[in-house]
């Protein structure tokens, strides 16, 4: 990625911003990509993040941030076209393929992404990861859901309470 020296963004070269993760790793990224985040967009519009300053993101670690930026860079061109009403079917199919592969990740990364997407207010990413988790839950019994999401075994009180609800609803727990 070419980093222009003076990035006022008006002379062809894309304006770059620097983001700093909670563990102090610096990420340089095009302003257009970072602006997919509603939170960052405001800072960037105010002229923040350029030069040596960088925008600190104390809630996002570097592993998560690099994943978030991977999403933003891929989606930035389509978002710049105003949701891409003139995008070709091929472009859309490509984004869809990317999205499907993108969420094919370890659960702990998925949850970190949910929180990061929420904190940074990246709408598309929020619904993408939420939908992924919802799909993991769909069609499973309560016990299967617990296992899938790695919940610890229910405490005896919790088990008793759920048994009571189970009777109320008339469904099997398993």
């Amino acid at each position: 990625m070419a980093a222009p020296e003076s990035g006022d963004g008006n002379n062809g070269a894309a304006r770059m911003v620097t983001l700093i993760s909670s563990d102090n790793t610096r990420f340089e990224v095009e302003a257009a990509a970072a602006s997919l985040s509603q939170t960052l967009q405001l800072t960037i519009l105010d002229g923040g993040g350029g030069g040596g300053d960088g925008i600190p993101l104390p809630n996002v670690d570097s592993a998560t941030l690099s994943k978030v930026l991977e999403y933003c860079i891929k989606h930035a061109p389509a978002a710049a076209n105003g949701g891409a009403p003139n995008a070709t079917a091929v472009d859309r199919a490509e984004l869809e393929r990317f999205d499907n592969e993108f969420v094919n990740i370890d659960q702990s990364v998925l949850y970190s992404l949910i929180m990061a997407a929420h904190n940074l207010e990246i709408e598309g990413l929020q619904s993408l990861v939420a939908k992924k988790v919802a799909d993991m839950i769909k069609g499973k019994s309560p016990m299967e859901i617990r296992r899938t999401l790695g919940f610890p075994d229910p405490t005896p009180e919790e088990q008793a309470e759920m048994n009571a609800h189970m009777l109320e609803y008339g469904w099997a727990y398993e």
Partner: protein
Amino acid sequence: MPGTDPFSRLHDDLVAGILVLLPPKHVARARLVCRRWHLLTTDHHFVRTSFTLSRHAGRPVAGFFHNDQICVANYYFPLDRDAENDGDHPYPDLSFIPETSTNPWSIHVTSSCNGLLALICWPPGFRGTVYVCNPLTKKLAPLCVPTQFCHNLNIAFEPTKSPHFKLVALGVIYSIHVYSSETRSWKMAVHGDHSASLFVGLRSFRGVFWNGSIIWNVGHSLIRFVVEGEYLTNLPMPRKEKGWICAYVGESGGHLQMIGYTKKEKFAARFDILEMQEDQSEWSVLYHVDLSQVKELYPNIEWPTWDTRYHEHKIIEYLALSPIYVIRGTGKSGQNGVLIFSIPGKIMSYNMKDQKISMVQEVTSPRKVPPAYLLEQFWYNFYAYSPSLFDL
């Protein structure tokens, strides 16, 4: 943190934001996962959001309850057969209703509205019991209903406006009675002296809930009872020409649909589906329907006159085909709608987008009526159902 699942790090809003994406049926099951999920998904705001989302997700009807058990053995027709492959039972489970243990056929659905059902149960030798229930959450409220109108109850339930439901019933000489789940009591809203003349020509006791009102067809016009205001008014019929009849009134997607035709249009199986949009008083054409290929597929739905039945040139006097429900598509123009209709022995669907005709359900008779003597089914015996999570 060792020993702690990563999911529990997500705060409540985020967990609710994920669970609300599940169809209501799956939410109901997810309630049993843990105490936290139970609390999150029984919250009223959650339930309403889930309702609005599934309404817009393009699956407004899961299936139909059918209350004519004298002629038909099936009490429910699922529309979405794919649900079966999801490891999901497509039939709503009514076994929590006490009467089903003794006689499952004693239940008659008399109204269905946003996931709630009104039913009447007839245990042999007893007075009927009326219930309002939510089959998904298995919540049941027995109601005290005066016998003279326990057959024509209409649920009026608009959860985006009020968490309480009302029941509207036609009583003696068409007096109108309203039950409120908030006050748990009945009151007479309109005295028969003021309503009897309006109801002359009533086609069916079956009302349709639309736009905060119950609508009945009296032939030359529609009668509208505004539930909140407790008054009656008229809606015009779209056409007045001789021989035109209204064959269907229903609600889908918040709008009121009507199907009507002249004899000629009916025999040709080509007619329009009209619509009155919410807060309007004009009818406009929603879809043009051409079911003429049904006649080719099932020639025996055309009934010739008695004297021409062996002739080469038959004179057709009846077409055994009747609309059951209009499922409106999305958007202002209602693209991709579906018409559910009936011919003898079958419930069929017609897709507006590609004109595709398919069979939804074979209709069997408990009395072993030979297929040739089966009649088509009529809309007023069908109750569109879609699960919701609302409490009573």
